[in-house]
């Protein structure tokens, strides 16, 4: 039977199942295949908070969403068009993210009496009519998988582990994906176990054939390649990009990299990644606590290493006093905060942008420090590279803000050419004549980096107030006033050394949507849609949050209204209002979830009223 093929611009699929159902792997395979086929895409995993939640319960549900298209894709998608649900609990948890009229593919074996009870369904949603507004496809994946492997006499546990490949096979058929990439992956992954190669390959092909030959599915879809910039790509998550960015920065600074860190969700993957790169001479130190994470890094920085500490909000709270020490001793240090829901322990696995004020202001005394934010998963690479550049050139700690959403999300990344990355090396002081630890470069106000082991430059630094130039302890009123101002001025002058703010869209208009961090893709999508409708709206996304680009005021004053959407109660907006005295409007959502483009679009409509 020849089936109908419909061409789509973009699709969002969500794979959902029990933690043990292999949904992350399935989603990852679909992602890689789509990337290789030339689609632009964006993905978001959704792990359960519990490590080993009871099977088939709602808190054990694991999901993976992929948004791919023939056009530019900037977000993992507001809603999914297709939901693959391996059991009742995963349907229950994920149904609210499915668009009206969307496709549901369920494994009917996951909807037995026990599954339904554990998921909290009084009766089966498959038969009670509650799914009537969706296109429901029921497939007994478990049974079909068993049949496929019946002659191999494998233990049932192994058979169960292959059923996600049946689902993947069906989805590959439905979206015209080439299976070769995944078949090759199976070969590589199980090369020590030919039985597993055989089983997984068979089950995936069975899924494909089932979709092709039975009349359960009448329509298949085609999503053509997107017009991407030519070059070599790989898929990358935010935490991976952070790790690679630091390796690149160390290389380009010609310094050894030292990471002092304490495990914390959602930042631990950076520590894991960097621990793997020992052949780059990288030293990773899993410290006894957050404080030792940063103070060990300060020690390494004193010794001349490119020093890094990685954490999330609660960890930054603990590191705060030490950040003050780095500011006072004027040592370079990169601090990465992968933000999560707060306050206190908050929502460790959920995203939030509520640590901006902590980053900019959250220390005792007058303690300014540069703050850089990453806007997408791959942009984490640029953010930490830029933070390293600033830290080394200005002898200061720099805070990098990412968040759980972009740290775990991934997107295709145009791999940068190493030769084109800027040289960010600095020279250590060597000349012992006329050395004073706190003499400053006239232009940057940065002091010189003199490291132990250099003859004739022996000096002492510390957390007590320094005398200008000599760095000796000094309690004089005028000196303290001067040093406070010098440290502040040093940070302010970085504004001369960063790119100007540049809006996407017209430089003047009715409304400017200003954002920072992980909301980039969503804001961009929403603003572009509204522009297509003819609305006078532009988008500005800030990467440097302290200091701001020099021209930020001018840029803002060119618009009648300013809208600042944030995943917090309004933090950037506070700083903008205070600095530029503008009556900006906030849009704030604090649910541990990213914005949906639709939410931004509705707000844009509201702010602009009936205006076209």
């Amino acid at each position, binding site marked *: 039977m020849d089936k109908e093929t419909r061409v789509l611009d973009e699709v969002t699929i969500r794979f959902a199942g029990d933690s043990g159902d292999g949904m992350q792997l399935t989603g990852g395979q679909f992602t*890689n295949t789509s*990337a290789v086929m030339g689609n632009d895409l964006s993905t978001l995993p959704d792990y359960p908070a519990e490590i080993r939640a009871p099977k088939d319960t709602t808190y054990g549900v694991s999901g993976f969403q992929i948004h791919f298209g023939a056009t530019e894709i900037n977000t993992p998608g507001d809603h999914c068009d297709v939901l693959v649900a391996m059991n009742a609990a995963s349907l229950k948890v994920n149904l609210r993210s499915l668009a009206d009229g969307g496709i549901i593919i369920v494994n009917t074996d996951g909807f037995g009496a026990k599954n339904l009870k554990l998921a909290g369904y009084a009766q089966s949603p498959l038969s009670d009519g509650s799914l009537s507004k969706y296109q429901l496809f029921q497939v007994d994946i478990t049974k079909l998988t068993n049949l496929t492997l019946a002659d191999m006499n494998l233990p049932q546990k192994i058979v169960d582990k292959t059923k996600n490949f049946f689902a993947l096979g069906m989805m590959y058929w439905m979206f015209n994906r080439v299976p070769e990439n995944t078949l090759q992956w199976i070969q590589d992954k199980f090369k020590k176990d030919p039985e597993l190669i055989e089983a997984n390959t068979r089950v995936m092909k069975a899924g494909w054939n089932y979709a092709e030959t039975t009349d359960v599915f009448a329509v298949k879809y085609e999503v053509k390649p997107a017009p*991407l*910039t030519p*070059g070599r790509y*790989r*898929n990358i998550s935010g935490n991976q990009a952070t790790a*690679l960015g630091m*390796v*690149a920065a160390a290389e380009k*600074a010609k*310094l*050894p990299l*030292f990471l*002092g860190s304490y495990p914390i969700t959602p930042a631990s993957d950076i520590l894991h990644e960097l621990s793997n*790169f*020992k*052949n*780059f*001479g990288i*030293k990773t*130190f899993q*410290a*006894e*606590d957050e*404080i*030792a994470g940063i*103070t*060990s890094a*300060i*020690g*390494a920085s*004193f*010794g*001349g290493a490119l020093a890094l500490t990685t954490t999330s909000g609660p960890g930054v709270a603990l590191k705060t*006093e*030490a950040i003050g*020490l780095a500011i006072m*001793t004027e040592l370079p240090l990169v601090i990465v905060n992968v933000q999560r829901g707060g306050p206190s322990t908050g929502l460790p696995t959920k995203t939030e942008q509520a640590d901006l004020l902590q980053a900019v202001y959250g220390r005792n005394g007058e303690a300014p420090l540069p703050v850089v934010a990453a806007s997408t998963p791959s942009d984490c690479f640029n953010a930490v590279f830029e933070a390293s550049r600033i830290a080394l050139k200005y002898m200061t700690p720099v805070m990098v803000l990412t968040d759980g959403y972009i740290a775990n999300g991934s997107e295709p990344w145009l*791999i*940068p050419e*190493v030769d084109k990355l800027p040289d960010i*090396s*600095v020279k*250590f002081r*060597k000349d012992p004549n006329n050395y004073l630890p706190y003499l400053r470069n006239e232009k940057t106000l940065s002091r010189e980096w003199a*490291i*132990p*082991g*250099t*003859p*004739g*430059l*022996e*000096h*002492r*630094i*510390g*957390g*007590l107030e320094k005398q200008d130039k000599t760095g000796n302890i000094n309690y004089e009123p005028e000196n303290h006033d001067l040093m406070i101002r010098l440290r502040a001025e040093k940070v302010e002058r970085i504004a001369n050394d960063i790119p100007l703010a540049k809006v996407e869209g017209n430089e003047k208009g009715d409304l400017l949507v200003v954002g920072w961090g992980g909301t980039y893709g969503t804001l961009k999508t929403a603003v572009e849609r509204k522009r297509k409708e003819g609305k006078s709206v532009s988008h500005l996304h800030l990467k440097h949050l302290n200091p701001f680009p020099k021209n930020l005021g001018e840029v803002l004053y060119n618009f009648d209204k300013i809208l600042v959407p944030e995943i917090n109660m309004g933090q950037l907006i506070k700083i903008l209002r205070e600095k530029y005295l503008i009556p900006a409007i906030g849009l704030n959502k604090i649910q541990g979830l990213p914005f949906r483009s639709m939410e931004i679009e509705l707000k844009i409509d509201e702010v602009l009223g009936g205006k076209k």
Partner: protein
Amino acid sequence: MNTMIDEVVTKELISPIKYSAKDFSSDQDVRWCPGCGDYAILASVQRVLPDLNIPKEKYVFISGIGCSSRFPYYMNTYGMHSIHGRATAIASGLKIARPDLSVWVITGDGDGLSIGGNHMIHVLRRNIDVNILLFNNQIYGLTKGQYSPTSETGKVTKSTPLGSVDMPFNPAALALGSGGSFVARTLDRDPKHMQGIIKRAAEHQGTSFIEIYQNCNVFNDGAFFQFTEKETKSDSVVFLEHGKPLVFGKESDKGIKLDGFSPVVVSLKDGQHSVDDLLIHNEKDSTLAFILANMTYHPELPRPVGIFLAQDRPKYEDEVERQIDSAISKRGRGQLEKLLNSGDTWTIQ
């Protein structure tokens, strides 16, 4: 791996330089209270360093907060007067990043055992090659006289007007319990002994922990006089010397013998015991070290002073270097280009 660091730092000592104690004293006025025990410790360190045959620029002194932590300012070496309790963690990072340096930690009973207790136990278990001098004066001096984690129970201070109710730490036992590979105790008023211990600590490969009884003549004067003053010292202190029996007393007339696992005092004059009955110190024996450390605070036993334990154990920073070397020999020196292009990649034409 060649980095910018290699361009400035001294690689190895080309010809031994003759230093004197004065070369290690900085131009800053020393500002401890007159009569403070810290002066003697500073002088002892400055006297020992010239003997170690290490270029001056390789020394780094790191301190936290407290009276003792002013120490780095008075040393003409690299130094950092950091924040309360964190000197051990900063020193750990520095030594791991720069194993070529001789890293020293100056701390006190409050800085090192109270606010910095966590970092202290962890540096000891890791055995990072830093030398920790813990100035124990059993009081908070800088904040003007509150009781400390080593103050005796019942201590009356500004913050404990009716006497403290907590039991003090025994720093030597704590260091041993943390896995310390070199644990010693010495006295501010016995410079010769102190210098000997500091030298041994400097030569030890791994973390060295020295508890120094230090008199705070302003807030806790005489806390250790029983162990440091001539009239009482010899009856109250037993000096631990490797391979030698534990003898003490004005006329060397007393000794320590083991009764089961418990040390007891025996007389060498009453005809019932001779030196042959006494416990022989072995600084390589960690079980013995625990027994000796636990003599501290025992009302009937003399206070043990000297090296409790000096054991060889792999150094953390060596293991780190070893892993790096083996990763390089297995996978080749890391190449950024290759790393960025690793994993599944694809090309868009």
